[in-house]
C-alpha cells in the first residue's frame, strides 16, 4: 500500500507541517508560549504566528505533499499490476527484484525540507538536512542496488550488510554513546555538586543491577527486560532534557594566586636597574 513514491510525499508533508509549526514559533519576536502554539495549530486563526510568509509556504508544502501522497496511494503507487492496467498491457511486467521496506524516502524528505528551512532559519537545520541527505543518498542507493543485485533476498540483504555495516555499526554506536554521554552529563551538570556525585554513583549501580538481573536470572522474561530498558532509556532522556532546560548549576570561576614561575619570560622582561634591556 505505502510504496516508495507515496512515502516520499507523506514524509515531505509531515515535515512541512512540523517545520511550519516550529517556524511559526521561532520567527516570532515574542516569548514562545501558549499563544504561539495555538497560532501555529490554528493556521494563525487564533494566537500568534511569527513570519507569515514563511509559515504559509511551509504549510502549503505540507498540504500539497499530503495531497499528492494520497493521490499516489489511491492509484496504487508502483504496483506492477496497476501499472499494467494503466498502460493497458495484457501481461504484468516481470517481477522486479524483491524489495524490502524502506524508510529512506521519508528521511530524505525530512532532510530536504530541513535543508530548505535551514536556508531560511538556522544553520543547524541546514547542517542536519545536509547530513540527513547525504546519509539518505548513500543508504538509498546502496539499498536499491543491493535489492536488485540478485534474485535472492537473503543474499541481497547479506550484500547490503556487508557494505553498510562497516559504516553503520560504528556510526550508530558512536551516536548512541554520544547521546548517552550528553544526556547524563547534562543531568550531572544541572545537579548541585554533592548531588551529582550521588547520581553519578547511582547510574552505574542501576546499570549493574539490571545487568546482573538479566544475566543471572534466565527466567526473567524478555518483555520485562524490554520494559526495563525502555524505562531506563526514557528516564535518561527525560532527565537529560529536563536538565538541559533547567540549565547548569552555577559554577564559580576558580581564582588562583600565582607566585609566578621562575621562568625567564620571553619578551625582554626587565632584568634590573642600571641597564635598559
Amino acid at each position, binding site marked *: 500500500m505505502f510504496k516508495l513514491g507515496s512515502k516520499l510525499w507523506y514524509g515531505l508533508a509531515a515535515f512541512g507541517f512540523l517545520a511550519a509549526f516550529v517556524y511559526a514559533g521561532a520567527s516570532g519576536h515574542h516569548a514562545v508560549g501558549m499563544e504561539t502554539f495555538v497560532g501555529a495549530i490554528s493556521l494563525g486563526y487564533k494566537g500568534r504566528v511569527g513570519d507569515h510568509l514563511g509559515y504559509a509556504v511551509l504549510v502549503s508544502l505540507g498540504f500539497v505533499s499530503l495531497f499528492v501522497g494520497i493521490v499516489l496511494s489511491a492509484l496504487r503507487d508502483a504496483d506492477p499490476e496497476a501499472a499494467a492496467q494503466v498502460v493497458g498491457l495484457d501481461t504484468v511486467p516481470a517481477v522486479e527484484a524483491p524489495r524490502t521496506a524502506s524508510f529512506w524516502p521519508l528521511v530524505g524528505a525530512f532532510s530536504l525540507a530541513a535543508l530548505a528551512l535551514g536556508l531560511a532559519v538556522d544553520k543547524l537545520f541546514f547542517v542536519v538536512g545536509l547530513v540527513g541527505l547525504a546519509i539518505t543518498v548513500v543508504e538509498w542507493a546502496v539499498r536499491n542496488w543491493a535489492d536488485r543485485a540478485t534474485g535472492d533476498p537473503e543474499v541481497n540483504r547479506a550484500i547490503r*550488510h556487508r557494505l553498510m555495516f562497516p559504516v553503520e555499526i560504528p556510526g550508530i554506536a558512536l551516536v548512541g*554513546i554520544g547521546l*548517552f554521554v550528553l544526556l547524563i552529563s547534562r543531568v550531572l551538570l544541572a545537579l548541585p555538586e554533592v548531588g551529582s*556525585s550521588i547520581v553519578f554513583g547511582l547510574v552505574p549501580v542501576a546499570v549493574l543491577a539490571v545487568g546482573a538481573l538479566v*544475566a543471572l536470572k534466565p527466567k526473567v522474561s524478555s518483555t520485562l527486560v524490554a520494559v526495563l530498558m525502555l524505562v531506563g532509556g526514557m528516564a535518561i532522556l527525560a532527565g537529560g532534557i529536563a536538565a538541559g532546560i533547567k540549565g547548569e548549576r552555577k559554577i564559580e570561576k576558580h581564582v*588562583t594566586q600565582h607566585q609566578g*614561575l621562575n621562568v625567564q619570560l620571553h619578551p625582554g622582561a626587565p632584568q634590573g636597574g642600571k641597564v635598559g634591556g
Partner: protein
Amino acid sequence: MRRLRSLTDIAAPSTTEAGIPVAVPDGESHGLSHATSTGISNEKLAMWCFLGSECLLFGGLISTYLLYKDKAVRGPKPHELYAIPFTSVSSFVLLMSSLTMVLAVSAIQRGDQRALRAWIATTALLGATFISGQVYEFSVFLKEGMGFTTNAASSAFFTLTGFHGVHVTIGIVMLLSVLVLSLRGRLPQERAEAVEIVGLYWHFVDVVWILIFTVVYLIK
C-alpha cells in the same frame, strides 16, 4: 558455483577450512590455535604485544603530566579543581566494568549467550557512564576557568585523560560490535577468545585508569 557460494556464505556463514597441521596465517588459525608454535593464538599474542606497546604511550603522557602539573603561568592548576569523591566514583565505575567484562568472557566460555549479551551491554553502559562523568568533569573545569589551552598543566591533564577517554570510547564501540555479532548469532562458544581479546583491551584501559587515578588525582 564458486561465485554464488560466496554470497550464500555471507548470508549463512559456515565454512571453515579443515586446518593444515601447521601454523596458518590470520583468522584461518581460529579454532586451531594450538597449531601455533607457542600454543597461544595469534590474535591474543598480538593483543598483548599491543598492550605492552601502549604502556610506553601512556607512560609518555603520564610523565608529561608529572613534569607539568605545577607549571601554570595563568589559570588554575588541575589539582586545585579535582573533586576526589566524584572521581572515586568514576574509578569505581570502571572497576565494575572490568568485573562485568570478565563475567562476559566467562559467560561465553560457558556458551551462555544470554549472560554474555547482558554483561557486554552492562560493560558498555558502564563505560559510557564513565565517559559521561569525564565529560561532566571537563565541563566543570572549563567553567572554573581551566581549559585545554589555559596553561601547561591543563594541557597535560586534558591530553592524558582525553587519550584515556578516547581509549574507553573505542572500547565501547568494540563492545557494541561484539554485542551485535552475538545478537546475529555470529559469536558461538568457540569464538570465546574474540570476546576475551576485546576484554583484554578493556581491562588495560581500566588498569591505566588505576594509574591515572592514583598518580594524577590522589597524589598532589
